[in-house]
């Protein structure tokens, strides 16, 4: 079983975590200004790269806090974990 590093608790087993999908998808600043197409992208569309992906995880069976991680979706290797208020790392 893969160990995932919670930035608050340290490495814990994968079963303790809940996946939250793509990170840094902000709620629209002016929702009323969005057209249908833009709403569709906000609601339904998420990136789906093969390779490094900035995504959200929650330590559901531990401290219950959310954090972000950069993980490689082809190898499943976690490259870094960081707090939700930190900016998105530059992904080459």
């Amino acid at each position: 079983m893969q160990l995932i590093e919670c930035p608050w608790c340290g490495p814990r087993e994968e079963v303790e975590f809940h996946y939250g999908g793509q990170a840094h998808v902000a709620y629209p600043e002016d929702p009323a200004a969005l057209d249908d197409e833009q709403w569709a992208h906000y609601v339904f569309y998420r990136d789906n790269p093969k390779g490094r992906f900035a995504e959200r995880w929650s330590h559901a069976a531990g401290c219950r806090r959310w954090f972000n991680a950069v993980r490689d979706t082809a190898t499943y290797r976690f490259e870094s974990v960081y707090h939700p208020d930190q900016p998105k790392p530059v992904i080459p």
Partner: protein
Amino acid sequence: MTGDITRPRTPGADLPDHPDFLWRNPEPKKSYDVVIVGGGGHGLATAHYLAKNHGITNVAVLEKGWLAGGNMARNTTIIRSNYLWDESSAIYEHSLKLWEGLEEDLGYPILFSQRGVLNLAHTLQDVRDSIRRVEANKLNGVDAEWVEPDEVRKICPIVNTSADIRYPVMGATYQPRAGIAKHDYVAWGFARRADEAGIDLIQDCEVTGFTTDGNRVTGVQTSRGTIAAGTVALCAAGHTSVLTDMLGFRVPVQSHPLQALVSELLEPVHPTVVMSNAVHVYVSQAHKGELVMGAGVDSYNGYGQRGAFHIIERQMAAAVELFPVFARAHLLRTWGGIVDTSPDASPIVGRTPYDNVYLNCGWGTGGFKATPGIGDAMAHTIAHGEPHPYVAPFALDRFVSGALVDEHGAAAVAH
């Protein structure tokens, strides 16, 4: 006596000759009328029906690995058409009818076995949803019935229908015409027919980019050179986003690992297919004798064709609860595929922002059953430049219009 008896023999010298190859392995030509990206079931079926129904044979199927080595080789082969909504039951029922004549059409054995499928209900809400689905199915001409626990026991005696389990079986929907087929044979059957018609099946040929001219794609760049294309059909399942990223448009799919497993070979014990949404496992017994069981997706996005072991453990717990007799069976092999899940658990098929590129993806955990149906509909779409009525409701623009075809849960386990 000569010394022949003692002379060492070349290893393998006594083996029979390699059987005939079912298709050529041609070099890619400079140009094709139609280029299909992805040599899984959907790509191969599209090729077959392009030739058979429309006489279009200047076609290449480009496959980055080996033919049908993706999800086509990894699925649990459940075939059924008992989906809730009219749009879904139309395409899946069309597909099921094609399955019923497929062996003859392909002239190849595919071990299609209509042994029925039970979708178990474990809660009152399950029961209500299931009966609603049965009624919807009947209105759509799909064979479906509601069966009580004692009938479940008659259809599949090894299911635990006692009241004292965590999720008692409160009944099931039953589709007698549902069943399983041998996935590899299906792929080979389609491939052989397409090859006979003159279509080039090109393996070890990865699409790495596209050349475009305004709203048109003019060619595909591949690991074996650039190939000009009149029309392009994307049939890349879990890798669709990688291709649409190259083309510069987005599709609302997420790629997830999906795992399955087989037991050792056993005597026939399981006469049908059983699926359970609530405890999440689906089981049949292959012709050879293995119990074939499928899991749920791993939660994270993944392109690794493998998943986590705790998913398998959870699935085994469900299987042993429902089928106590399995407790003594040994797990032989587990594996994973990459499935392209969509927001409404329905496929995404048809037009793209490019005039001559057609999309076929989003089948997620349940596209094997659609293989002949979508091949037929994609071929029609390509030949007429117009989405086939069966796929029209599954257009990409439904995520803007809001006309979703929500098959989440409503269609029982999504396989």
